[in-house]
């Protein structure tokens, strides 16, 4: 359960995507611990139609988020945080993106239109990202370049196949992301 006592550096990568895209499965495939869940409170404005004062109510909601851990060396541990991509969680995004290396954005080729809001948030928070195309059973292989075009991604943004149930595929998507981060430094 405990980290290696020499581990001094914790880094994080966000696994981002819309509801049901496979974030938790992806994290579970590569995490060295059983994925854990944090509960946190966010405040959001709720629309109350009976309220004649015109001021939106603030309500508190608890959001559950899954995460995993991967020790990468004697000194470095990586945490993977599943991050919901809805606009209403942007308060949480400020904390999650602070110090994050980047993001793996998971997309479902059958539901690409649901990924626009996610990509919008990722770009707004200035995260470097790689797009992982999850392949679900029964769906035909989706040409990656069509995904790039449909999502209007830049030529530089890596787009990789990412069967989230497959440890190697999920790891390869992370490796692509880190290589991409390194390429931006040189």
């Amino acid at each position, binding site marked *: 359960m405990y980290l290696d006592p020499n581990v001094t550096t914790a880094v994080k990568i966000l696994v981002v995507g819309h509801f049901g895209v496979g974030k938790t499965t992806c994290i579970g495939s590569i995490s060295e611990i059983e994925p854990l*869940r944090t509960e946190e409170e966010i405040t959001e404005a709720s629309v109350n139609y009976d309220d004649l004062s015109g001021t939106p109510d603030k309500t508190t909601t608890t959001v559950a988020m899954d995460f995993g851990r991967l020790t990468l060396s004697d000194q470095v541990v990586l945490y993977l945080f599943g991050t919901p991509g809805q606009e209403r969680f942007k308060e949480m995004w400020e904390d999650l993106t602070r110090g994050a290396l980047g993001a793996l954005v998971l997309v479902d080729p059958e539901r690409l239109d649901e990924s626009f809001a996610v990509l919008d948030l990722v770009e707004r928070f200035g995260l470097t990202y790689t797009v992982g195309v999850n392949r679900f059973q029964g769906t035909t292989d989706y040409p990656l370049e069509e995904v790039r075009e449909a999502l209007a991604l830049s030529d530089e943004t890596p787009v990789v196949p990412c069967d989230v149930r497959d440890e190697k595929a999920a790891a390869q998507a992370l490796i692509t992301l880190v290589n991409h981060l390194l390429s931006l430094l040189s």
Partner: protein
Amino acid sequence: MSDEPEPEPEAELELTAPLVPFFVVTGGRSLPPAHEYERTTLVSAKRDAAAEARTLSPEAREVMRLVADGFLSVAEVAGHTGLPLGVVRILLAELADEDLVLARKPIPPAERPDKELLHAVLDGLKTRFGA
């Protein structure tokens, strides 16, 4: 009004209510600054902290027990205790004030990630997954 359909909850985002009000658990203290006791801050109990821990609240004691023998991230403390992240952060700040826990802060956010660190991450991933 009452027969309006309820908005469908999103299954992934569990909405829960606490059994004990959290201001009781936290003794009314407020959250530490955002960059303190973040999800990836690593925490461990100090070696000689066990005796003093007896006087703490049950929740703070649970946190102390959890990190008694090594380092865990703040997120893991929240995950294992089932306490909301905010509550865990407040409890840890309190325990640190009382000199009962050690914290290793995550790397400070930089404009660009450090090259050496990225290489360490890359090598670690490749070694682990044989890629």
